[in-house]
């Protein structure tokens, strides 16, 4: 099962004089949880926006399930099976929790299956008591959970999570980690995770891509990354990664 679901090939995005993403190539294996880490301004979110079609790359190609998807519009990619959540939660605040899920165009199934799917998803993230609450009245953490659940309404094959743990308390973080793992096991979904909580990413992800100043500086398993000198230098200058993980608890 080491098949590649997503791969980028020399992906470059230039904003005027700034090279936000510079000739980045990496592969994501099917059913894996891949982490994308790096200091602020490394180009992680730009990378997500390129993959999801929110931005068009300056040069380079993106392949999803073997097909070229460079330059596709976001809604088309979403229908192909690329789901995402955003750095700042993007739930529809003026609609109820239920409406937020229900408005997602179902891939092909009947109304009944999509109702059941929505129920299961809300149950999985623990929002089933808040069906008729307006999304804007939820806590930030709950909004992120709703956004996460909503992304699964389209039966995505690949889900990109942009700072899904930001704003969650430790208890919610643990629950979210469990949810992601169980979703991966049950729905065979592939995840790519961006987060500043390096400790969580190292724990959750089996493969990690490290970016700094628009370039990929290292790729490897958690252990390889922990001991990679380039990575340590990018984050701390010269200190060790363990100290950061201890700080986070």
């Amino acid at each position: 099962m080491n098949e590649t679901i997503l791969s980028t090939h020399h992906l470059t995005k230039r904003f005027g004089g700034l090279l936000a993403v510079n000739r980045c190539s990496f592969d994501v294996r099917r059913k894996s949880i891949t982490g994308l880490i790096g200091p602020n301004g490394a180009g992680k979110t730009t990378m997500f926006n390129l993959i999801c079609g929110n931005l068009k790359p300056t040069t380079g190609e993106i392949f999803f399930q073997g097909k070229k998807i460079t330059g596709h519009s976001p809604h088309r990619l979403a229908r192909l099976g690329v789901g995402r959540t955003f750095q700042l939660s993007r739930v529809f605040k003026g609609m109820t929790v239920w409406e937020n899920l229900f408005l997602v165009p179902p891939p092909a199934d009947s109304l009944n299956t999509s109702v059941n799917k929505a129920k299961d998803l809300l149950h999985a993230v623990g929002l089933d008591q808040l069906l008729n609450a307006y999304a804007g009245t939820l806590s930030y953490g709950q909004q992120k959970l709703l956004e996460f659940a909503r992304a699964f309404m389209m039966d995505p094959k690949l889900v990109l999570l942009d700072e899904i743990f930001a704003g969650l308390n430790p208890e919610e973080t643990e629950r979210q980690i469990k949810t992601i793992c169980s979703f991966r096991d049950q729905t065979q979904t592939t995840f790519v995770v961006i987060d500043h909580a390096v400790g969580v990413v190292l724990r959750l992800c089996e493969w990690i891509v490290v970016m700094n100043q628009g370039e990929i500086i290292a790729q490897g398993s958690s252990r390889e990354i922990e001991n990679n000198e380039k990575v340590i230098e990018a984050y701390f200058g010269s200190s060790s990664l363990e100290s950061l993980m201890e700080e986070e608890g």
Partner: protein
Amino acid sequence: MKVRLSLLQQFGLFLIVLILVALLPAIASTYLITFVLTLFMYIALAYSWNFISGYTGYISFGQIALFGIGSYSCAILILKWHIHWLLAAAMGSIIAGAFAIPLGLIMLRLKGPYFAVGMMGLFQFLAAVAATWKSMTKGATGIYLPPVSAVAYIYFAFFGLALALFLATWTLERSVFGLRLRTVKEDEEGAESLGINTTFYKVFAFVVSAMGCGFAGGIQVFYVSYVDPVTAFPAVLNIMMIIMCLLGGMGTCWGPVMGAVLLGQVSEFLWAHFPYVYLILYGCLLAFIIMFMPSGIMGYFHKRKILRGGIHTVLPNLGSIK
């Protein structure tokens, strides 16, 4: 206090209104008929504007451009091909709608104030085209049509149009389609990431709005039997349809009709009783509304929980969810 009518009560109320409307031309004075007729036009225009700007949040300051296209199309069809006026108005509506497809694809790429000002520019541009394209529009001289024999026909035409647009809005409020349309106002990028083709939804709303405006323009041109660039692109009406929507409540089902009826009557009253200062009073009233009821009458009711706020989408029964 909480107002909630059952479906049967709503239907009964609707029926009473329908009967009153149907009987009015037989019993009322010509003045009253023409007044109500104008109200119907206001309602139709307010709903048309509500479709695009109320639901998608793309505030258009030039929706009257499509009213003008409908007016001229209808006038030219009647004059050159002697088509029945109602059919000509319907064709004017279709022409306005067809025009709105490429227009929407281009204009709806602009956001916020750029779209608003862009539409205003477009309406000025079309008025200028109408004034200079003399072979087609007869320029500033205008096109004269045979005068109308029975006002009642116009009255029913405007009523039908207003009713159709109301029913379209009512259906929209209760559909998943409407829910998706609202995502454009809430967060376009978020909607796109869920597989919603926001361009399709907003262009669709724009086209429906254009058809409503175009139809109103067509009926109006036959009613006044004359069209020139000023009557086809009336700046006052352009602003009025926006203000009516704001007063009633943008993006609501009942807001446009409330705003149109209220504002229509108030402006008529002020005009009749204070002919010299009526515009000043009118302005004061509007300032008052915008300061104290920024989300309109419906927004005020929703806030006070007198009416149920938000969306009425009919969702599947959730009784068994827990």
